[in-house]
């Protein structure tokens, strides 16, 4: 890194070269992080996870889910906490963006209700409570 005259100077070109390299890798890392936490990916993950949870649930169970990460994305896309997770007709529907949404069927014929929880300030925390009960007017042993 010595100049022509033998002085200990760091060349400007080298600094630019170093900065460009760092910039390049920073953009790459941001891209990777963004890809792994995108709305479409989370919608799919949440809907399938919740459907599988319900499939294994028994009547009387109370399930707590942390969908905080999804709620942050939903908030920025103006999706209400009630719209984020909907369970009806044996389908779990997760919506994190307008025009988006992913649904997944579950076979366990139970009555599942969703309640988004609020924190001390009255704001939605991203925690959801699912109550699992038997469906009315049906007889069974499970």
């Amino acid at each position, binding site marked *: 890194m010595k100049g022509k005259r033998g002085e200990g100077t760091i060349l400007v*070109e080298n600094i630019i*070269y170093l900065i*460009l*390299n760092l910039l*390049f890798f920073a953009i*790459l890392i941001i*891209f*990777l992080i963004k*890809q*792994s936490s*995108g709305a479409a*990916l989370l919608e*799919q*993950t949440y809907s*399938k996870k919740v459907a*599988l949870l319900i*499939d*294994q649930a028994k009547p009387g169970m109370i399930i707590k889910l942390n969908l905080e990460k999804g709620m942050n994305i939903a908030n920025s896309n103006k999706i209400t906490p009630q719209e984020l997770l909907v369970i009806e*007709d*044996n*389908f779990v529907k997760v919506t994190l963006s307008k025009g988006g949404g992913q649904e*997944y*069927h*579950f*076979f*366990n*014929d*139970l009555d599942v209700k969703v309640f988004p929880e609020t924190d001390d300030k009255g704001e939605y925390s991203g925690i959801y409570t699912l109550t699992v009960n038997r469906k009315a007017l*049906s*007889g*069974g*042993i*499970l």
Partner: protein
Amino acid sequence: MINKKGEKLISVYWFLILTLIVVGIVVMVNTFYGNPYDVRTLEVEVLNNHVSNCISSGGRMNPLLIWPSTGQYQESFRDTFVEKCKLNLEGHNEFDPIEYYVEVNLYNKFDKKPFATLFSGNKNWIGDCQANNEYKNLATCYNSTIYSTDNVGNLYRIEIFSIVHKIKENVNQN
């Protein structure tokens, strides 16, 4: 490589190599995240467990299936199998194909012929299980055998066969 021109030349090549690496990573990441998660292996096992818990809970046959005092098979259970086992295999509407199939064969001790068969769902997927398992575009199948007793002391062998199709949600169609 020591002179200025040489250094610039290396820089240009260095950024060309970086660009190639980045393009490669972007393509790989997009391919990876573009494919849906295939949860059918897990789902079919859960379905199988659900049905086996319904037929025999805690090692005892369901009293609605095998009458506890006499050990007699209840024919009526076959017709209400789906309701009794709390299964909902239907899609959004009646025109959507059912994405599941469940079959339960009940055997007396070590008999080769089942004395009763219960089933529900779409029989069209059975063929997928007989084909080579390497193809992802086929339904996922799961077999299990459990043993159970009734109150009289009869021993039963129960074979449960479950299928989950759901290709649209779990496999990339492109």
